[in-house]
């Protein structure tokens, strides 16, 4: 059988247009050419029933709905954030938080040296009546502590 004939026969076989004798002839021809694999594929292709494939998992529906639920949650958060009114509100809240943080820091820095001194005194300095002092423990670094020694002496004088 030449190539052209072979192709024509295969098409007819696929379409179920070959009579039983011709079909058998083609099958035998394929077997003689050691093309059994091809014959099996052809039989599969020309069979009226779809071949079997592994059954899908019974949890597919549960997985689908779980995906949809997650997507819905995500969508809700996004839509909340992207609502036109929400954006300026969020910006305003962020500005307010920044302003409050800065104000608190400034207020902290503006506390008087005496107050800071008191803290240092309680933490690590012993004062005497004559204005002298002893350092018995310093948690802060030396330069920071030293900055207050003069003030301390001055105050007691």
């Amino acid at each position: 059988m030449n190539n052209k004939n072979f192709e024509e026969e295969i098409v007819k076989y696929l379409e179920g247009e070959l009579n039983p004798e011709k079909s058998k002839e083609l099958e035998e021809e394929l077997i003689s050419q050691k093309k059994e694999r091809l014959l099996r594929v052809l039989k599969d292709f020309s069979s009226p029933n779809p071949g079997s494939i592994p059954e899908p998992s019974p949890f597919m529906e549960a997985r689908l709905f779980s995906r949809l639920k997650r997507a819905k949650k995500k969508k809700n958060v996004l839509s909340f954030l992207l609502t036109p009114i929400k954006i300026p509100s969020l910006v305003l809240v962020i500005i307010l938080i920044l302003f409050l943080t800065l104000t608190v820091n400034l207020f902290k820095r503006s506390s008087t040296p005496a107050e800071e001194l008191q803290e240092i005194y309680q933490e690590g300095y012993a004062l005497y009546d004559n204005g002298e002092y002893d350092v018995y423990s310093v948690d802060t670094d030396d330069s920071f502590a030293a900055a207050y020694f003069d003030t301390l002496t001055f105050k007691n004088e």
Partner: protein
Amino acid sequence: MEGNNMVLSEQIRQIKAGDEDAFSKFFETNRDMIYRYIYRYIGNKVDSEDIAIETFVKFHHNIDKVDLSKNIRAYLFRIAHNLVVDFFRKYKYTVQLNEDIATGSEKGRDTEKELIHELLEKLPDKYRDLIILKYLEKYSNEDIADIKGKSLDSIKSSLKRARKKLVRLFNKLQ
């Protein structure tokens, strides 16, 4: 399939109205068809299930855009097909062989499945789709035209070309 489309249209109306049970029914009706179609391309159960789920998720996300006057099943198949193409692009066309082929016991059936995959892989995308629907999933030409949203004549002539290409590949097989 015309009647099917009417049933589907009704289901879509209900889904659009927020009825989750309707979507569940829609999924049940179309799950196997979409899963099988994807499986024929991918050849492995886990990825096929993932892509099938993704297909329905995408469909649900775009439910408001679904035109009830058009073929709903064609739209669903198109989403599945695009996801399959994305999958292959992502994995650089390394077609994963069927899990059953890798672990199966029936040697004869295994090599046959391998051969089918080999053949499908060599076919151009537009023909592969038709061959899967026609010869593996056994859809009629009318159904394929419906699924692809094309005219029957156009499907017939495309199938003729696809078959020619397939048979040439058969001929080259040793």
